[in-house]
């Protein structure tokens, strides 16, 4: 993971972030993420995030479960130790279907949960940088990553023009880390959010 420079802009109302996100994408700044206190419908489309492909992962896990079940039971009853049960064949497919079905569902569901957590960086013990203490309370926070082409002052002026009530520059870990709540290295906040200082 990497330490990067960010400029954050806090907005008070939901419609404002749609407008902000649209302008950010038009202006070509690198949108890091948008944080909202609750799930905002349509924000993923506004941010231009692609549709999830977790279904494909689920299909692959399911296939893996099917193969595991059939190979496991087939090895036991048809290859390793053949038993004559009620005159049925050594590989009785019909008798295997329920267990195959269960294992398919199990593999696919557990695999999808783990993949979902991995993609959203939500494993137990995983920590992420909190850009603004009020981003889970009542503030909609748009975070722009500073690249070599942009300066902090420029982005701050941009947020100012959009009507952000809370603008700040931060140097922080972009990804997740494992451990306690403290960041791997203390991040610097070059200027405190105005409202935070007021109280």
């Amino acid at each position, binding site marked *: 993971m990497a330490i990067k420079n960010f400029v954050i802009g806090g907005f008070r109302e939901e419609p404002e972030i749609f407008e902000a996100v649209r302008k950010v994408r038009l202006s070509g700044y690198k949108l890091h993420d948008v944080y909202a206190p609750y799930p905002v419908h349509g924000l993923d489309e506004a941010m231009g995030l692609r*549709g999830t492909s977790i*279904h494909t992962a689920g*299909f692959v896990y399911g296939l893996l479960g099917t193969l595991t079940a059939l190979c496991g039971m087939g090895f036991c009853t048809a290859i390793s130790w053949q038993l004559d049960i009620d005159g049925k064949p050594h590989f009785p497919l*019909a*008798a295997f*279907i*329920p267990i195959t079905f269960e294992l398919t569902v199990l593999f696919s569901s557990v695999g999808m949960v783990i993949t979902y957590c991995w993609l959203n960086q939500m494993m137990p013990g995983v920590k992420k940088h909190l850009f603004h203490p009020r981003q889970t309370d009542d503030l909609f926070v748009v975070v722009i990553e500073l690249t070599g082409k942009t300066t902090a002052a420029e982005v701050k002026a941009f947020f100012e023009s959009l009507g952000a009530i809370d603008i700040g520059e931060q140097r922080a870990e972009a990804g997740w880390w494992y451990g306690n709540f403290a960041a791997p290295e203390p991040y610097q906040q070059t200027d405190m959010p105005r409202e935070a200082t007021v109280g």
Partner: protein
Amino acid sequence: MTPRLRNSCYGLVAIGIITLVAGAFGLGSMHFWATLLQDSLFFLLVSVALTLMLAAATLAQGSWQIAMRRVMEAIVMAVPVLGVIAFIIMMILVYGHKPLYLWTNVHALAADPRLRGKRPFLSPGFFTVFAVFMIAGWSLLGWRLRKLSLLEDQAPKGTTKYFWKAVIVSAIFAVFYAVTNTGSSWSWLMSLDPYWYSTLYAWYIFASTLVCSAAMLTLFVILLKHMGYLELVTREHLHTLGLWMFAFSIFWTYLWFAQYMLIWYGNIPEETTYFHIRLLGPYRAFFYLALIINFVVPFLALMSRDSKRKYASMTIMAIVVFLGHWLDFYMIVNPSTVGKAEGTWRLGWYEIGITAGFVGLLVLLVARSLARAPMYPRNHPFLKETVIHHTY
């Protein structure tokens, strides 16, 4: 309805009538009667399953169905006609010409204690009364749902009185269907094999007709959309129909397999006869074909999101599922009658002609009902929700 479509429908009905007349010359033919019974029951039960879909969507207060509710109501309004046709055919089979239902044969009844034991249920009197009860109930409740929907159109905007009345009628229908679905499949279809029985049979017929009704609705919706009606139906509604078809294809497979596996495991001669003629006898190819086009093809083809949102792929899949469950009904009726009597399968002009006649008749009936009302319920409380309906 364009003149071209109407003429094709009259053409299809004409083919059906010609087949009917041609078959009537060979009245002794068991194949002809089996086809008539299969097709009439298939179209009747599928339309009744669509009534259940309408009732379930009303009860669950689903908003997606409002955009196509008039199409569903129009198909539901075909139930009385299809019911009368099926009833006439069954009455001929029970009282007049008796090649199909073994239990109507007095000599067979007298000779066999196993049939004598089932006499209260498998008797012409009970059969007739129960059939009248079921068909009349379906028709009346379906007609009531349609009536309430039309009354709602006339009511002032924002009226919820008729909506709640429709919820009550739907609840009554759901309970009524739970009993009559079991009763109809046992007395009309399972009694073709009077010695054999399966407690899962009613569920199996239910799943088959329900998925087929979704396919039928999809075909009607796509046809009407193509003709420029149904401006409220979008890809989101198509996606919902695709989900319905996908889910109930798997549900059908679940019940099909549950019935098959228990009989296979138990291996009791009395029970395995049903699968002996279908799986090991002359119907082997149809058996596997039905399984492939009713499970494997919808499962793989309808799994992805994109295929459920495209008109082309949904049309193809709806046709495949519809034909697949037609074949399923063929596999229910034909082996028990023609297969048992003649030792071989028969599939030919009777099937094609009679099915074409029923398709033409159904399209004409639906078009007639559709023309009598606006294409969507104008005053339904969920009208806005169906316009902004979104499927993930």
